């Protein structure tokens, strides 16, 4: 199932939303709502974003365009099934017909869920799987306020099944937003910790998409460019939150990483992170950051040339000339250094993981669709090993 670099071009697809990037483009929310024929907008956000004032910014834009709206901000990190259903209830009750979401990955995944529940009238958990959504949701306008989740361009929505304590992956081209207003301005208010976590999430997206067995030349371009941008800008964005250059680069890096993983999918890091998020509600970005270096240990040998390209993009010295084993060690070292430099030094146990949770985590991770495109079929032993090392 591995993809050879010199193989002939295999069938691949690339799907992306309409993209508008640049400072201040969040103000276009009202115009897009009008263009989509909105009569009433469901505005999805979360309390943190509301508090930062970005929700207000979008509200004003909608009001300027004369579009009525209703705000739904009952969303928490790792969005829960009942939050989606509550939002869908609000959507139906208020007779909304367009959804605008402003916030990070959680509100955006929640908004995607609300959309398909709104048009299909079914419980959100029944859409679990790939291409299991019969009818697309209403027009969806995304205004990301973090640089990293990629949810504003992806076909994924990860919803927590609170009964089973697992994260459910809903994968469908219908989940891809209609337009994404990528405005770096909205990321200026991010705290350094959040900047770091979302940035490391974006880096993980880029690396996993690049080594994914479903990668394509188009996704590779985005993935490698994302790696370069993130490596260059994340530390300064963490250290200097008001640095416009860094924030803009990170926004682009996150966007490219998103385009890459949305079309090429991910790998074992996300499978394991979803399991952690579902069981223990751990922050997604940090889990990814901690597990990323472990995945290189497992996957390097399945695709050494891909990892060499990553190393080059990541600025590992002499990466073109090193032998595989040295390169692997150098790359892992560089990733560890980078993680620690942006301030993520915790182990999984520091986040609240207990050793007895491991068997459950492994079982859930082994069922995650992200494993389908891992460079090599990961065994439960290897998964277990990764968790152990990150513990």
């Amino acid at each position, binding site marked *: *199932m591995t993809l050879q670099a010199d193989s002939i071009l295999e*069938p*691949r*697809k*690339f*799907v992306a939303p309409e993209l508008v990037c640049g400072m201040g483009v969040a103000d276009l929310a009202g115009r897009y709502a009008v263009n989509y024929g909105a009569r009433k907008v469901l505005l999805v956000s979360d309390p943190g974003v509301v508090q930062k004032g970005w929700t207000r910014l979008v509200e004003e834009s909608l009001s300027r365009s004369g579009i009525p709206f209703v705000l739904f901000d009952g969303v928490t990190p790792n969005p829960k099934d009942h939050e989606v259903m509550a939002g869908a209830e609000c959507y139906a009750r208020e007779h909304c017909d367009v959804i605008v979401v402003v916030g990070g990955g959680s509100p955006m995944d929640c908004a995607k869920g609300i959309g398909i529940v709104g048009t299909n009238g079914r419980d959100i958990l*029944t859409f*679990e*799987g*790939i*291409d*299991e959504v019969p*009818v*697309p*949701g209403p027009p969806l306008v995304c205004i990301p306020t973090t640089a990293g989740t990629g949810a504003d361009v992806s*076909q994924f929505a990860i919803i927590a099944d609170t009964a089973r304590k697992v994260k459910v*992956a809903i*994968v469908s*081209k*219908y*989940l*891809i937003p*209609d337009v994404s207003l990528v405005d770096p301005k909205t990321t200026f208010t991010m705290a350094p910790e959040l900047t770091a976590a979302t940035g490391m999430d974006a880096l993980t997206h880029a690396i996993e998409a690049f080594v994914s*067995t*479903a990668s394509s030349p188009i996704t590779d371009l985005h993935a490698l460019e994302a790696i370069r941008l993130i490596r260059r800008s994340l530390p300064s964005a963490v250290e200097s939150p008001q640095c416009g250059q860094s924030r803009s680069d990170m926004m682009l890096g996150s966007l490219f990483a998103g385009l890459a993983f949305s*079309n*090429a*999918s991910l790998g074992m890091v996300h499978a394991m992170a979803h399991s952690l998020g579902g069981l223990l509600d751990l922050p997604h970005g940090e889990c990814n950051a901690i597990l990323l270096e472990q995945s290189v240990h497992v996957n390097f040998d399945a695709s050494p040339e891909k990892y060499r390209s990553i190393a080059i993009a990541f600025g590992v010295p002499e990466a073109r000339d090193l032998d595989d084993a040295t390169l692997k060690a150098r790359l892992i070292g560089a990733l560890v250094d980078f993680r620690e430099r942006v301030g993520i030094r915790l182990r999984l146990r520091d986040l609240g993981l207990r050793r007895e949770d491991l068997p459950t985590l492994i079982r859930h991770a082994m*069922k*995650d*669709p992200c494993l*389908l*495109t891992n460079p090599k079929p990961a065994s439960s032993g290897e998964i277990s090993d990764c968790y152990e090392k990150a513990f």
Partner: protein
Amino acid sequence: MKKPSDRPLSEESLRDRLMGLGEKSTRKSYYPQLLRQLDELERQREELVEKNRVMTEILLDLDRERRRATESEAKLSKIFRSSSQLIAVLTLADARFMEISDSWISFLGRFRDEIIGRSMKDLGLWGSPGEWEHILEGLQAEGEIQGMEIQLRRPSAETFYGLLSVTPMELDRVQCVVMEITDITARKRAEEERLELERRLLHHQKLESLGMLAGGIAHDFNNLLMAIQGNLELAMYGSSHIPSVEGRLHRAIGATQRAAELVKQILTCSGESPTRFAPVQVNDLVAENMKLLEAGMLSNITLQFLPDGDVPVIRADAGQLQQILINLVLNGCEAIGDAVGRVTVSTGRMECSDGYLKQSRLDEKPEAGHFLFIEVSDTGSGMGESTLNRIFDPFFTTKFIGRGLGMSAVLGIIRNHRGAIIIESARDCGTTVRVLLPLPRSSHPGEASYSSIHRHRPHGTDDRSLDRPRCERNR
């Protein structure tokens, strides 16, 4: 991973889907959904058009049915209404009219509105009470009634004979019956008339044979009497010197004379005695006889004569008129018996209509016109219907010692004079017998004199005489 479809998917196909190469891995688009909805709308529209077409057809059918039903109903209604039979729909419970044929309107002489909703009883139609209950019993037993003979009362109180058929039905959720009555009154009347004729023929034949028998005997008897009388008279001449013999012979001759009178009477009632017509002044004749009658009258009875001064002379047999008078007065006295009473004889002239003359006890009715009357009324016991019907039969008598020939002879005399006799009587209310003798046209006084009408009311005539048909008496 949980699959909505139970069939587990291979990793290969899941991976294809993830890469966007699955069958359903299309970009978000509302177009297919829109087309499906448009198709659905079109399908619904076609369905509606079809339903509309079907509905229209149903409506047209219904309309046609309705019109046909209306026509058929109108036709049936017309047949029902225009039937010459008396047809009606009645409520079962109380024989209340719900629907009627037009024949009822003319039968009852009322408007339809006055009949519908009222019962047979309300309208006084039943000939006898309990008739409906009787019909209901029949219905209960037979399910329906066919050709039952009934009597109804017309509003004019005339009896109506009908053949009744009754069939149960339900109308507007009310238990009803269809009643059909065929008018058989005419048939019934004809039958009655036939019976009456038969009865009269029989009576006539009886009289005839009796008359022939009596007449035959009377003739022979008369001849024998003449022989006895002649020989007795001859014997008288030859024995004039023997007083004892002479007296006996004289009594024997008297007895033969009385026997001859009796024979004459028999001959009169059998219509065989010759009538000698001569001018008679009736008032004089009555007055003369009143004296004789008064002499033999018992003291408990008052005899009264109320003559009308304008009674003309008529041609009649005076002896026979006398016989009538004596018979009637004696009968009146006998009806009074031992009680205190009065017998009144009155005379006069009157104009009689056919209707009045129909009451005459003679089969041969005279033509309408002017009549002289001799009326004898008493305050006696009167007669019942059965006695009245037989008083003219020969040898019929209510008296212990009567011969039963008086009234029979009266009838014979009046027949010979082409007159009429009218009797009004009822038990305990007395009897009035009026003998009418026709006046020739020439004896009629000027027509103008009829305009002054004087009703002569003799004493002792009760008010029933007012109920008599028009009868005018001239002064």
